[in-house]
C-alpha cells in the first residue's frame, strides 16, 4: 500500500528512531529546506553504478535494493536498504561515480538533497556530519559482512548470492 507523502521532516513521527534523521532542531530545519520530497513507484532506479553522484536519497518509507553489476550484466545484491537509510552518500562525499546501483523495492517517499547543498549543509552542521560518519561506519560494516559472505563462502549457494 502506498503511504501518504510526509512533506516536512519536522512533523515526522519516525524521525527519532532513525540514525540520520534524528538531527538537532536547527540542523533539521536547514535539512527540511534543502530536501525535495517525491513519491516514487516500485522499480524506480535512484542511481546507477558508474554514474556521477547528483545527491543523496533518504528513504522515508519502503526498501531499496543496492546492487553491483558485472560487465556481462549479472547483478549481485550488496544489501537491502530499510526506511531511514541514506543512499548515495559515499559517492557524494568521495566525489566519485556511484559504486553501486539503487532500485526501489516498494513504492515509497524519497527525500533528495543535491550534492552541493549536502556538502554545504555538512560543513555548517557538525552534528549532521557526525551522523553521516556514524551512518558510513554502519554501511562499511554491512559491506565488509558482504565481502566475508561472498569471499569466504565455499560454494555459490552458501554465499547467498542473488544474481539476476
Amino acid at each position, binding site marked *: 500500500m502506498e503511504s501518504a507523502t510526509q512533506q516536512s521532516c519536522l512533523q515526522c513521527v519516525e524521525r527519532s528512531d532513525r540514525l540520520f534523521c534524528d538531527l538537532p532542531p536547527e540542523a533539521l530545519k536547514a535539512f527540511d529546506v534543502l530536501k525535495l520530497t517525491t513519491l516514487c513507484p516500485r522499480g524506480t532506479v535512484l542511481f546507477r553504478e558508474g554514474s556521477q553522484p547528483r545527491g543523496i536519497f533518504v528513504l522515508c518509507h519502503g526498501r531499496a535494493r543496492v546492487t*553491483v*553489476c*558485472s*560487465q*556481462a550484466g*549479472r547483478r*549481485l545484491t*550488496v544489501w537491502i536498504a530499510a526506511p531511514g537509510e541514506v543512499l548515495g*552518500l*559515499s*559517492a*557524494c*562525499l*568521495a566525489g*566519485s561515480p556511484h*559504486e*553501486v546501483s539503487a532500485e526501489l523495492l516498494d513504492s515509497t517517499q524519497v527525500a533528495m538533497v543535491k550534492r552541493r547543498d549536502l556538502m554545504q549543509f*555538512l*560543513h555548517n552542521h*557538525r552534528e549532521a*556530519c*557526525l551522523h*553521516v*560518519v*556514524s551512518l*558510513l*561506519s*554502519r*554501511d*562499511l*560494516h554491512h*559491506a*565488509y*559482512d*558482504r*565481502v*566475508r559472505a*561472498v*569471499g*569466504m563462502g565455499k560454494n555459490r549457494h552458501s*554465499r547467498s*548470492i542473488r*544474481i539476476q
Partner: protein
Amino acid sequence: MLSPYGLDIIESCLTCKTRTERLFCDLPGAALQAFENIKYATAYPKGAVLFVEGQAPRGIFVLCKGRVKMSICATDGKTLIVKIAEPGEVLGLSATVSGKPYELTAETIDPCQVNFVKRDDFLHFLKSHSDACFKVAEQLSEKYNNACHEVRALGLSHSAGEKLAKLLLEWTSKNGEAAKQEPRLRLALTHEEIAQMIGTSRETVTRLFADLRKRQIVQAKGSTLVIRNKTALKLIASNN
C-alpha cells in the same frame, strides 16, 4: 631520528611534509594542533598486528609510512585480504566510530610508522572539529566504495583466472602503467598473499601465473612482472 626499523620517524604532524597530499592529514591549523596533542607516534616492524578482527575497538591508527595488510578470516582459518592500506590511510575507523568490534585484522607488511589515537580522544576530537569530521566521512566513503568494489570482484567473477587478471590490471592502473604498451609491476606480495586477495589457493595462483607465462601474456623478471599482452589479459578479465 632513525628508528630500529630504518624508518625516518616523523615526530610531529605539524612539520610533516607529506601531510598536504593526504586526505585525512591535511587538516586546518587548530584541528591539526589538537590531533597532534592526542596522537602517539609508534614504529612497528614488518609482521606486527595492529588489531585483530572481533577485538573491541581501542582507537584509530593513522598509517604514516609503510603498508598494512587488511584481512578477514573464516572460522576454518582461511584468510581473505580485503585491501593493502597505503600511507595516509586511517585504520580501524568504522569500528572506532561505531563502537562495534574491528571488522578486519591489520598486519604490517613493511616496517611502519603509525600514529595511534585512543577511541575516547578521537570521538571527542571529531565532536570538536567539524573539518576533521568531514575528512573522516570522506575516508569512510572511500573505504565503502572499495568494499563494494571487492564484493563485485569476488562475487561476480567466474573464475580465479578472471580475478587474477583483474587484480593485475588494477595494479597497473594504480602504478600509472596502464597506458603503456607493456606495463611493469613489482610484485610485492607472495603467491600466498595474492591468493588471499582473490579468494583462492596458493597452488591455483602459481598454476595461473605459469599458464600466463606459457601463453606469453606475462613475463617474470625477478620480482618484476611485465605484461606482454595487455589485450589478452583484458580478455581474460572480461571473462571472454
